[in-house]
């Protein structure tokens, strides 16, 4: 039986623990994606940022996306955690990991999940800039 596990968290993401949850004797492949907080966006120097989410809707939608990916790419397991709260440059904001019998579905499933998460989850990001200004960002202005 395939496994999905999506969570919104205000704690640092413990990747070493999470990728072990994807272990499966029939898995020949594991693929993961980490989204990091970077120091530059749209020409502005970013100091830090705050993520806000609607926990219930985001968790339900995130779980739905993982199940879609499992069904579509025949994954063995899929997990994703997304941070909320205050994050510093270099922090891991989102982590996606999947296991599958072969590498093709693992890469494709992982890509599907992060792309859908970015479009569909009610999560918002407020960037704080070096010049003291701050601004809400949305996925249509964000490049990646």
């Amino acid at each position, binding site marked *: 039986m395939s496994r999905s596990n999506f969570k919104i968290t205000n704690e640092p993401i413990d990747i070493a623990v999470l990728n072990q949850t994807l272990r499966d004797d029939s898995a020949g492949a594991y693929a993961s994606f980490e989204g990091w907080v970077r120091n530059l966006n749209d020409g502005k120097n970013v100091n830090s940022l705050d993520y806000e989410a609607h926990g219930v809707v985001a968790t339900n939608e995130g779980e739905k996306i993982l199940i879609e990916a499992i069904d579509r790419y025949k994954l063995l397991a899929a997990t994703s955690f997304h941070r909320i709260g205050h994050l510093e440059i270099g922090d891991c904001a989102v982590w996606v990991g999947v296991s599958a019998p072969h590498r093709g579905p693992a890469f494709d499933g992982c890509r599907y999940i992060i792309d859908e998460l970015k479009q569909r989850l009610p999560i918002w990001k407020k960037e704080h800039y070096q010049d003291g200004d701050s601004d*809400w960002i949305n996925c249509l202005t964000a490049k990646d």
Partner: protein
Amino acid sequence: MINVTAKYFAVFREKTGKESEVLLTSAATAGDLFTEVATRHLFSDPMLRCKVAINDELAGWDSGISEGDIVLFFPPVAGG
């Protein structure tokens, strides 16, 4: 006319200055209600770039709203 609760997030919360408000409205759909609050609170994001949830379930803009519903207005998202 019906009473509904509108809830605001991120930039919408900052623009309205409140997390929620009870509205007496003639709006029949979530989209009608968005147009009403967007006009009053000067939201600049087009409706089709925003999302709506009714009673914690994502919904379409043409979804009907009923007495007592809690309508969540989500500005353009930015996860990841």
